[in-house]
């Protein structure tokens, strides 16, 4: 897993070195975007995993998945930060480029904020629901499946390998605390070094842009049975429990990306 990431980074570095100097900024902008996309993906998956913490789908494996996803997120964060600070410190960029980099910077800081909050919450919940006690008191939320596929998506691998010790919940929490302080320090440093006004950035997407982005994702129909999906028009206070299946192919197992 580490090797995959290292090789990716090496490729990226090679690309930048080989490309000509005039196309330098364009290429680095593209790299930034890909790295940010990766960070975004890992943040989303981390949040998904933290939601499952403390419920009946919690387990040894989940704690390990959390740890691995977190580590990957940190590596990506450091790489992103280095790249972006380098780009933003460069005074020779044009105005458009600079606006673009500021936009990417705002994306980066927002991702980091979400990550920080999720890490703090996972620390709290992890402390409240230990796994090594004789009787676990995990909340019966109705979720029973495993989160392997989500973690695999985060790590960009086909299958997850589990090889942690049995006392991962206590040992991991100590590491988590140090990591949280690290992330906090990193964000403070970033704010000191790079002066970007987050409110001055203009978003490129307009309202409803997310609808267009998922049309390209093949399985756009949602094969989920929703409980009590009331009519969009008539929504009085007391409606009956209705079960509706939206039209489209019903595929419970979506292919791994």
């Amino acid at each position: 897993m580490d090797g995959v990431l290292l090789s990716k980074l090496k490729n990226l570095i090679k690309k930048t070195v080989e490309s000509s100097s005039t196309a330098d900024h364009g290429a680095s902008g593209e790299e930034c975007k890909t790295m940010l996309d990766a960070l975004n993906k890992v943040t989303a998956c981390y949040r998904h995993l933290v939601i499952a913490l403390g419920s009946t789908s919690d387990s040894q494996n989940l704690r390990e998945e959390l740890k691995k996803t977190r580590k990957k997120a940190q590596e990506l964060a450091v790489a992103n930060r280095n790249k972006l600070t380098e780009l933003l410190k460069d005074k020779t960029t044009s105005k458009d480029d600079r606006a673009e980099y500021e936009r990417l910077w705002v994306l980066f800081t927002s991702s980091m904020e979400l990550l920080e909050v999720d890490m703090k919450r996972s620390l709290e919940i992890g402390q409240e629901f230990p796994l090594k006690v004789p009787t676990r008191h995990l909340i019966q939320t109705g979720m029973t499946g495993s989160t392997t596929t989500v973690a695999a998506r985060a790590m960009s691998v086909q299958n997850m390998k589990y090889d942690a010790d049995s006392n991962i919940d206590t040992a991991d929490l100590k590491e988590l605390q140090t990591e949280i302080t690290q992330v906090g320090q990193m964000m403070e440093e970033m704010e000191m070094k790079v002066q970007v006004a987050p409110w001055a950035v203009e978003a490129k997407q307009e309202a409803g842009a997310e609808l267009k982005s998922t049309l390209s994702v093949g399985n756009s129909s949602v094969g989920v049975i929703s409980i009590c999906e009331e009519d969009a028009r008539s929504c009085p206070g007391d409606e009956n429990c209705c079960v509706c299946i939206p039209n489209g192919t019903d595929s419970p197992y979506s292919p791994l990306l």
Partner: protein
Amino acid sequence: MTIRTLRDYGQHYRPRMACLKNVEVFVVEMQDPKSGVKGADQKLNVTIIPHVINGQDILAWIVTKMKVTTEEAQAFGTMLVAYGYIYPLQNHRKLVLVPDSTLYRFQTPYFWPVQKWPAEDIDYAIYLARRNIRKKGMLEPYEQQHYDNLHKWMNPKWDFIVMQATEQYKANKERKKPDRVVLDCQERAYWIVHRPPRRTHSAMDYGLDRLIDPNAEEVLTFDVVRRTNIFLTQALMRSAVKSSMSLTAFVKFVTTHHNHDPFLTTPVPSNPWITDSDEFWQLNSRSVDIPTKLSVERWVLSFWELISDPRGRVDFKLFLKKEHSAENMAFYEAAEEMRWGAASAIPEKSQFIFNTFLKPGAPRWINIDGRTMGLTVKGLVVPHRYVLDAAQTHIFLLMKKDTFYRYLKSPVHKDMQKRALVPAPHVFTDAQLEANVRNRNPGVSPILQWQQEEEEKAAAAVAARPIDVKAMVATNKLDRK
């Protein structure tokens, strides 16, 4: 310039949420598979989702566990639902515990209401964007409103929101179907608690953010003890009213004002804050012809009530005009204006008041005793805001002790009592309530109202001037030919 964002999530202490720690312990016990509420399986077409509990079972369990009555257990259960520890599966907007076979489920700890982590707008924006994707653009009206709002003011972060929403959507699709259903229900329940739609009463009334933790133990330093000492000695030095006296006064106030309080009695026709129909305010406004019976009863209670109600004041002034003793009220109002008005206008107003009310031979001379008159006139040499206080109090007491009782016996008032109307209470259906919300209007502009009042005052001042006989003769009004 250094740009620093406030990222300290741990500092928003909300004192009303101090009970949450104990509630969490309770909920953990409640969901225990052996000793807690018995869960069942929910069958939805082909999927089976476990861990579903009955409203009845929850109530019975709370009664046995806490050893309380059914009503108390009902209230407690409703609080659990309103905080979001348990969420209903049907009727998901009504956050109450219904003690029959309605189904509930426990919420995952990530979505528990915790003191330190408020439900941030950026999370809500990501959730709405994801819901937009899932429902293919058909959000509910209140959700659509929130969405548009957030898009407007969170615009710099919108790219991030869209990216996160699509990623989270894809991550969610990796799970199996029953889990996806549960995830969807959970998150929807969380946001109903933290961003409630209309007429959903959730318990997340945050109140103001505080900078210190009210649950933290206060360290007893020397300074703290010293300040407590000073406070207690000063409290001892104050003269105290006997509680029997203050309590009887309190009880008397509550019993007299019981019918006029909108919290204790439902106002007729309807409470505008609840039903969004402002007929109540229109019926009690200054310029209405016939007031409501309730306000007329209120005027009888005391002179102060009569003066404070704008419609009551209009009625009283009408009575005074008939008695030709309107100068008292006019002086009172002029003094109030000087008291509350701009400091720059004080010299001009004091001059006007002296010329109109106080100097011997003034057109609207008020009848106050010599000592007060002397004090006031001397004070007006160097006028300040409160220079007319003594005279104003004297006039107020005069009106209260003499004119008020004459007013109550007068035909003006008795006629008004007969004519006062009792409006019929409103009964709105849900659709009409929604229509009321849409048809809310800002009402009469306060600038217009102030202009009207000024015109009336000017007219009253003109009418109160003494009749100039020479001018009337000159215009042949007295000529009987």
